[in-house]
């Protein structure tokens, strides 16, 4: 048996988390560096996965399978397809930046007891989340996936509730109450989703007798496992609900703005760029493979909801007064696109959606982290408190603009590719929906440019006049992301090559084919 690469990739950050937590209270920098090192090592492992993965090979590769809880029909089964590989790479890639960006976010200012170690805790929790996210991308056993899908909430919860923006307009007391409100809201939304999914998971067991994704999908395919139509639909809804909360899909989205608003920028990135991806990823992997018929049955409703998310999220983003909330609603709109792409059931749509997950991760990270740097300088999240920053901190403004342009998916930057694929993929099957969704790109331009104009341009505000430009550490965080945005915008082929085969087999699971063009203009 070969080296368990997947397990290693998930376990390494877990160990790192424990180690980081164990660092004595005084040795803060040591803890930070340790965390950074671990995240880099994990990145190395993720890259190995990327290299070892053969796009044209079997569907699930690098598989591992061990007996675990026979009574529950649960096995410890790992395996990655192209989609998972892409997302694992994204996760591992973003982590070092998140850690680096949050370098000073958790330095304790109040004096707790000798043993109170917020900094260690902060970075340990981040690594813990990484571990859980990675393993839930790898799990091919529904139960295994569920366990980490749920367990993930706990560290996230502490990250949101425990660490917020330093300066706060209403003072620390109000801040902590708002934070714990946001944290509790986040947890309850996702927990309710998760518990409803639990019911469905149990139901699945009752129906299928085991949790192995491959076995069940196979049994569904060759008809040896028959589900009554209603059963399948209920189970599908149970699963989808949880993922829709996580994603988040309108109208289950309201936890996201609070969570992102109250948590520090790196954590906010962790939420949207990494953790929420598990939801959309799971739709693609579990909903479609386990319940193909029900998925098709639910498609119209889901498409409409996704459409609402796109427009609604964008419109609300326009109406926000708080930078982070704005980004949050923008993300809601983007998740609408992802879900749209998934359930358009076309190869363009789903490849686009997968690509979108990656690109959105990078672009949001870029935008949000720069916004975080901005906020940490001025100590306010309110758009109205800024103005003319471009004059005093041109580099900051420039990077912020690029992040924004990525968010409005400007051609030449990565998000454009994915967004256009999603639109085309949707359009080929549902023209009307595709066209309405296209309005989203206008609104995206609106909220992004309004944000940029209000904060960066115009006469220089008194409070920002002394604002320093990006520091070296911050530049190190942002620059690679921007390079990546441009590279993937110009040459996304490496990613699409990995993703396409996986999408192809997913589509074949739901027995869907791309609609043929009316005229065969290209010779096959």
């Amino acid at each position, binding site marked *: 048996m070969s080296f368990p690469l997947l397990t290693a990739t998930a376990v390494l950050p877990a160990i790192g988390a424990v180690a980081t937590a164990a660092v004595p209270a005084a040795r803060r920098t040591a803890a930070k560096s340790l965390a950074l090192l671990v995240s880099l090592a994990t990145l190395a492992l993720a890259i190995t996965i990327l290299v070892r993965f053969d796009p044209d090979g079997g569907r699930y590769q690098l598989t591992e399978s061990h*007996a*675990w*809880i*026979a*009574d*529950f029909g649960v096995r410890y089964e790992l395996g990655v397809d192209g989609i998972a590989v892409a997302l694992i790479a994204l996760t591992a890639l973003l982590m070092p930046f998140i850690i680096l960006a949050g370098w000073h976010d958790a330095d304790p200012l*109040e004096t*707790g*007891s000798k*043993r*109170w*170690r917020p900094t260690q805790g902060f970075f340990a929790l981040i690594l813990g989340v990484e571990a859980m996210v990675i393993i839930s991308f790898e799990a091919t056993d529904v139960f295994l996936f*569920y*366990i*980490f899908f*749920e*367990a993930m*909430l*706990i560290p996230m*919860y*502490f990250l949101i*509730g*425990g660490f917020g923006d330093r300066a706060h307009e209403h003072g620390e*007391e109000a801040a*902590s109450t708002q*934070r*714990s409100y946001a*944290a*509790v809201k986040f*947890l*309850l939304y996702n*927990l*309710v989703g998760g*518990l*409803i999914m*639990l*019911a469905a998971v*149990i*139901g699945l*067991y*009752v129906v299928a007798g085991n949790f192995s994704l491959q076995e069940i999908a196979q049994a569904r395919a060759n008809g040896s496992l028959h589900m009554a139509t209603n059963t399948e639909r209920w189970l599908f809804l149970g699963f989808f609900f949880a993922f829709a909360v996580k994603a988040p899909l309108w109208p289950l989205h309201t936890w996201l703005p609070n969570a992102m608003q109250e948590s520090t920028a790196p954590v906010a990135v962790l939420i949207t760029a990494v953790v929420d991806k598990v939801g959309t990823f799971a739709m693609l992997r579990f909903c479609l493979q386990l319940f193909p018929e029900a998925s098709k049955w639910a498609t119209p409703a889901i498409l409409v909801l996704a459409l609402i998310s796109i427009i609604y999220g964008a419109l609300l983003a326009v109406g926000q007064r708080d930078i982070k909330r704005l980004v949050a609603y923008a993300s809601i709109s983007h998740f609408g696109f992802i879900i749209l792409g998934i359930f358009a059931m076309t190869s363009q749509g789903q490849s686009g959606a997968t690509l979108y997950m990656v690109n959105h991760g990078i672009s949001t990270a870029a935008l949000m982290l720069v916004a975080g740097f901005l906020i940490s300088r001025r100590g306010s999240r309110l758009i109205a408190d800024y103005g003319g920053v471009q004059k005093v901190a041109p580099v900051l403004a420039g990077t912020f603009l690029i992040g924004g342009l990525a968010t409005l998916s400007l051609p030449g930057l990565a998000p454009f590719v994915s967004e256009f694929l999603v639109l085309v993929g949707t359009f080929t099957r549902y023209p009307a929906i595709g066209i309405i969704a296209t309005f989203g790109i206008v609104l995206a331009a609106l909220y992004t440019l309004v944000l940029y104009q209000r904060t960066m341009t115009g006469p220089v505000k008194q409070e920002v006049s002394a604002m320093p430009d990006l520091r070296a550490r911050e530049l190190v965080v942002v620059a690679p992301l921007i390079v990546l945005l441009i590279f993937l915008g110009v040459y996304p082929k490496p990613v699409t090559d990995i993703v396409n085969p996986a999408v192809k087999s997913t589509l074949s699971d739901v027995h869907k084919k791309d609609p043929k063009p009316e005229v065969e203009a290209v010779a096959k």
Partner: protein
Amino acid sequence: MSASAVHSLWTTAATAADPISKIPAPKIEYGQLSPTLIVVGAAIVGVLIEAFVPRKSRYYAQVFVSAVALVAAFAAVVALAAGGYGTTKAHIAAMGAIAVDGPSLFLQGTILLSGLVGLFTFAERRLDPETHGNRVDSFAAQAASVPGSDSEKAAVKAGFTTTEVFPLLLFAIAGMLVFPSANDLLTLFVALEVFSLPLYLLCALARRKRLMSQEAAVKYFLLGAFASAFTLFGIALLYGYAGSVSYATIAHVVDGSVTNVDPALANTMGNDALLLVGGAMIVMGLLFKVGAIPFHMWTPDVYQGAPTPVTGFMAAATKVAAFGALLRLLYVVLPGLRWDWRPVMWAVAIVTMLGGAIVAITQTDIKRLLAYSSIAHAGFILAGVIATSKDGVSSVLFYLGAYSFVTIGAFAVVTLVRDAGGEATHLSKWAGLGRRSPLVAAVFAVFLLAFAGIPLTSGFAGKFAVFKAAAEGGAAPLVVVGVISSAVAAFFYIRVIVLMFFSEPRPDGPTVAVPSPLTMAAIGLGVAVTLVLGVAPQYFLDLAAQAGVFVR
């Protein structure tokens, strides 16, 4: 029935040629009853110790004896299980009074272990500040002396401690060992009283807040006696129905498989009204013990008032024993009645799950909070009971095992958080505990998460097992309700965590006492079991699965 028939009773007896030979000597399988016997024996020894050993060394003697007894008893259980008494050789012992089979052995093992852990918390003497140079535990110096009276002061000054708690504990455990394995209603009743009465007393023995402690005892006692009166009447009715208190016989009568009913008895025997009313009343008695709504109302008050070690032990062990008895009753005696009691139990389970979770939301005292949480958990377990399948039994067994350790551990943590007035149980005092002593807070958080059924804790494995069994038993709606109420329940567990970690510590906040290895062991064991059963439950699930068969 005719007078002559009755008369014949006496005459036959009177005209016995050789009465002695007529009465068969009882045949007792001492080996198979050894766990119980060991504990009872040790308890009696404890009483003797109280009588003869000088005060100074009583504590050590008691702790030693009890510990040895419990370990030995546990060893006996293991030996029996290894001997196959849990599976192949399972049978009815002691003239049909005791059933030695999988469930009873499993539950006895669980009870003994939680009893041992409970003993540790009982024996803890480092938490309370020393008074007059004497180490003291959490029990009254002299139960008889009036709170705040001179006699009490004198007793404290003299450094008295109520070492009687140890024999009491042992008696309670003995009763609990018999309770789930009782195979006739009389034994059931006696066992019920045998473990209830010591608990009533233990509740009254708190060192601090004695008024509350006594009040708890009174409430527990009165309500408990009230409930057992109902149970007893139920037993009487069943006896009237079946003409016997033996489970097997009753089951036969219920199935209608019993032959040659004396026509003289026909008018009572097999009278379903008697059966149903009687059965309902017994079940009610058991539901009282497990604290199911609407028989739960004693739980919060008693849990709050009783000395915390007692609360922990009670919460864990009583539930185990009572659910064991309930299982046996429903699976062995009344399976024929399934279609009558299942809907009722459905209702009870639903009300209990939801009610417990909802009321807990607004609790302000940590012990009451845990009390309501235990009520909600009773509801979850009931869902498993209702499955009426082998899986149902084993899932309930597993859940009980997992739950008891979490509970004792949690209450043990509660004993650590103290201020001038003893334990600081008001939630507001727990604010910012995570800043003061992260470790304790973290441990407690683990227990709370286990209660909430978050994956990778034993709570999740147990909940999953139970719900799975219920779903397979066709109780999908129950599963949904259970899921919803877990969501509600999650809310208040989370609230405590928020309080501990996210809110600023009070300047007048409590301190965390450094416990002796005893409590540490209790807590450590709790954490260990919680995590092991959460991550790798397979072995224990197998165990429970093997133990899932009742002997008839």
